């Protein structure tokens, strides 16, 4: 674990993190806190996890030298192909780990929240694999926006509960999953989908995603004769794919870490999800972190064309990386992300997820030189976004 940016005994990254939870959740979270490190470090757990990651998820994912993209930006760009994972994104690294954790804890019932549906699908998938009951909470508005993922979850045997409270999106789905956990304190495990929530979730999820940077180091050594790139670039919703891509580089100060948030229609437009710019320190879903809120401390609804980046907070590790300056935070608009999505599709024959396209669009902002090695975490594939992509470009064409 990182010396300088690892989690403290009490669950803090600098001043961020902790477990701000009502007593009703305490036994569940405490049980996990007491046991998670020990379970993860058991050799049998590691063996089972790695076997699944290899044979079921399809790891290691390739580190692909994108030549035409590199030419375009006059630097050397490697894409970490998390889009090639089973179910199409990095999300499954975490759900495979957590389902094994849930089994070790003797849990019989799995709950999860989902926004775009990627984490919901990844959770439903591992529940099918493990033969455990799966209930996914999803904002009602999101169930309508992301119908194919709802159908996939159902096909996989999960129950999808449309959430009608609050603003009916990801933050409310998370509230509802937490309420479910309060009401089912004994037999249920909550598989949270990012490096958010009360301690130990941010650390546990980061550990399960850390496989990304572990592989990057090995693969770079093979391809470049050095383990350390000059840049690692990743998009940040809650922050799990970025946490995984940064993990084994956190203490390597020569590696520039670039975290890319969604600016939506523009950081100052009132329709944005750029938490590190717009957020203030507060409490969301049991964690003290940066979050978007009103002056009165009411949590506000973010906006991004990408449902996976549409979260009003950011994980406490990232709040710490932003505040300490360890990572550079860049905000990318809908328009720039969509342009980058089309660019990668045409230059490399890879259709990225809209989330990952935000990271791609940041390539023009980082000024990497021809001698630099840039690793960009391509967190997911664009299949799930096809409707959004088509609608977006149709509207754009109509306006011209």
């Amino acid at each position: 674990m990182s010396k300088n940016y690892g989690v403290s005994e009490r669950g803090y990254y600098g001043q961020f993190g902790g477990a701000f939870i009502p007593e009703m959740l305490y036994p569940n979270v405490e049980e996990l806190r007491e046991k998670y490190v020990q379970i993860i470090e058991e050799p049998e757990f590691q063996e089972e996890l790695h076997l699944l990651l290899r044979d079921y998820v399809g790891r290691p994912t390739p580190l692909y030298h994108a030549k035409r993209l590199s030419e375009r930006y006059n630097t050397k760009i490697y894409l970490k192909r998390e889009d090639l994972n089973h179910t199409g994104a990095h999300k499954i690294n975490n759900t495979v780990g957590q389902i094994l954790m849930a089994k070790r804890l003797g849990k019989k019932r799995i709950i999860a929240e989902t926004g775009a549906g990627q984490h919901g699908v990844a959770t439903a998938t591992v529940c099918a694999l493990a033969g455990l009951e799966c209930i996914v909470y999803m904002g009602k508005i999101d169930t309508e926006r992301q119908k194919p993922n709802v159908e996939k979850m159902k096909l996989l045997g999960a129950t999808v509960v449309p959430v009608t409270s609050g603003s009916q999106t990801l933050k409310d789905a998370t509230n509802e999953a937490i309420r479910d956990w309060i009401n089912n304190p004994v037999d249920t495990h909550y598989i949270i989908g990012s490096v958010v929530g009360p301690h130990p979730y941010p650390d546990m999820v980061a550990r399960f995603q850390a496989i990304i940077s572990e592989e990057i180091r090995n693969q770079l050594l093979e391809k470049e004769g050095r383990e350390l790139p000059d840049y690692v670039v990743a998009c940040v919703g809650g922050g799990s794919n970025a946490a995984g891509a940064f993990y084994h580089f956190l203490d390597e100060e020569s590696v520039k870490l670039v975290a890319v948030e969604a600016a939506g229609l523009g950081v100052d437009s009132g329709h944005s999800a750029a938490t590190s710019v717009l957020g203030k320190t507060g409490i969301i879903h049991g964690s003290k972190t940066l979050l978007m809120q009103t002056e009165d401390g009411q949590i506000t609804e973010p906006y991004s064309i990408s449902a996976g980046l549409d979260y009003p907070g950011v994980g406490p590790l990232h709040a710490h990386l932003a505040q300490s300056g360890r990572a550079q935070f860049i905000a990318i608009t809908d328009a720039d992300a969509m342009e980058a999505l089309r660019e990668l599709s045409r230059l490399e024959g890879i259709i990225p997820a809209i989330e990952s396209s935000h990271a791609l669009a940041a390539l023009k902002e980082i000024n990497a030189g021809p001698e630099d090695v840039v690793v960009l975490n391509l967190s997911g594939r664009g299949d799930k976004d096809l409707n959004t992509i088509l609608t977006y470009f149709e509207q754009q064409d109509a306006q011209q």
Partner: protein
Amino acid sequence: MPNNRLTQLFREKTGNLLNVYFTAGYPKLEDTVTILEELEASGADLVEIGMPFSDPLADGPTIQASNMVALDNGMSLKVLLKQLEGVREKVTLPIILMGYLNPVMQYGFERFCEDAARVGVDGLILPDLPFAEYEEEYKPILEKHGLSLIFLITPQTSDTRIRQIDNLTNSFIYMVSSASTTGSQVQTNDAQQAYFSRVRNLGLKNPLLIGFGISDKNSFELACQTAHGAIIGSAFIKALQNAAEVRENVRSFLKSIKSEPTVQA
């Protein structure tokens, strides 16, 4: 140890304590003080005023909905504390403010305690403030302003932890009746009885009030046989939705709870 209306109440009355929860700014923005006056006149022993929050994750649908309405009505901590100015000329019952930590943090924790104490608030319930943080960071501030902090316990809370909470507390312990969010229908069963007697047998220094799922005269009286009193929230919020004028709604609900003399616990 604070000496406020809460600690005084528990010295004077040891059974059948009726604690009523309502959301500030619900049903109408200006109802707060009216409801307080009517609750006191109708025999509530203490009150919890809910400070509405956009994301009340320990609350069930009824209280969630009242939070949304209250926020739409324009309720905020600033507005609430302004409404409570001068309230001590109108009511004497202990007042607790209950809500989530984030709005309080944004107001400024110390400034909030200072302003709350000044208008006559006696205690706070902040369910998502962990007690380790409370001990380290917040306790001196609350004590300085004479405010009590009330903690929750649930059937899953261990004996050791209950004792720790008892040591930190100086008013009462909020005994959540079952593993649930607010407003759930609670069935009394063996497991619950075992929990109640387990806690009773710990011989705690603080009185116990049972909350969550207390909805009518029957469940109130049952709770009072086990504990020093009980807390009614969601059922009261529902009563406020009745067509009658707000004072009348408060009066008839409390009458339904307290209609006949209750058995001494």
